[in-house]
């Protein structure tokens, strides 16, 4: 749906790092390993939070819910 605020396993704050990560990897083409180093993400539990996330909220917002 939307990026979780904390890592499920360790509790590190990762919600504010998703946008910079997408900016670096998808838009600038930086390898994800370097992007993680720049964002100071060291553990693999936090890395999977970002790598495996799909922002489904953008899809849901396309459907009208308000009448």
């Amino acid at each position, binding site marked *: *749906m*939307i*990026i*979780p*605020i*904390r*890592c499920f396993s*360790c*509790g*590190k*704050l990762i*919600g*504010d790092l*998703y*946008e910079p990560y997408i900016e670096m990897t998808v838009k600038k083409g930086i390898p994800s390993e370097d992007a993680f180093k720049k964002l*100071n993400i060291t*553990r693999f539990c936090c890395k999977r939070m970002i790598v495996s996330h799909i922002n489904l*909220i*953008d899809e*849901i*917002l396309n459907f009208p*819910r*308000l009448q």
Partner: protein
Amino acid sequence: MSIEIIEKDDRLYRFVLSTSIEMANAFRRIILIEVPVMAIDEVIMLRNDSPLYDEILTHRLAMIPIITDLKNYNFQQECSCGGAGCSLCSVTLTCDIKNDTGEIILVTSGDLISNDPKIVPVSPNIPIVKLEHGSSLTFEAFALLGRAKDHAKFQSVAAIGYKFYPKIKIDENKCKKCVQKCIASQYCPKNLFKVGTEVSSPKLIPDFWKYCDLCESCSRECPEGAINVEYDDNKFIFSIESDGVLPLDTIMKKGWEIFKEKIDDFKDQLEKLEIEII
């Protein structure tokens, strides 16, 4: 008991703690569980047109780390207001957003308006929810002091752990039996051995203990069994990672304070106890 700091950052501490394993683990658990921290505990949702349910939105709000002031705030149950909530025990964060921009907007933690300018979310960029055109989000949230044994949102540290202090012994007499270059030292996943071309016993880099994982691949691969990997029973390499709610110095000091209080309390309880000797 002594502390020797290896690495000091505003978010990460690494230090060597020389004490017994019981004390080291007690210290770890107290920092993880007992150090009080502020987090949103109650939300009054007035209007929510976002795609997320009220409960999910409330849970997301609770997860936001909030910079804590331990001096000026008390626990709500110990407060003079008797648990009703007052300015000495709770902080109100309000959000009132109506999207009339014609585009999708992202509501972030920077949109939360606190009634105490010092008690704010750690980062203003934490996403809360997205709103489409015409929807609005209005709520009032109350942040309280709490302990992580009640809920993980009150954790003062993101990660805390310790590892054993490695002691690696290399027997040079056994090493002399080897004719070719040292094979065992090449298996180290962290490259902690000095690379030499001569036939001699392998040498470790001076600060190998900072990085050694005690994986024992060197001692396993040595054909002569010359490398012996052990660990020190009374030395631990701690690493504490904070998410910014409290400075790490405060976390450590508060941790020791609580530890001492608990030991004193335990002593008092023991003295009161009448022990029957059978």
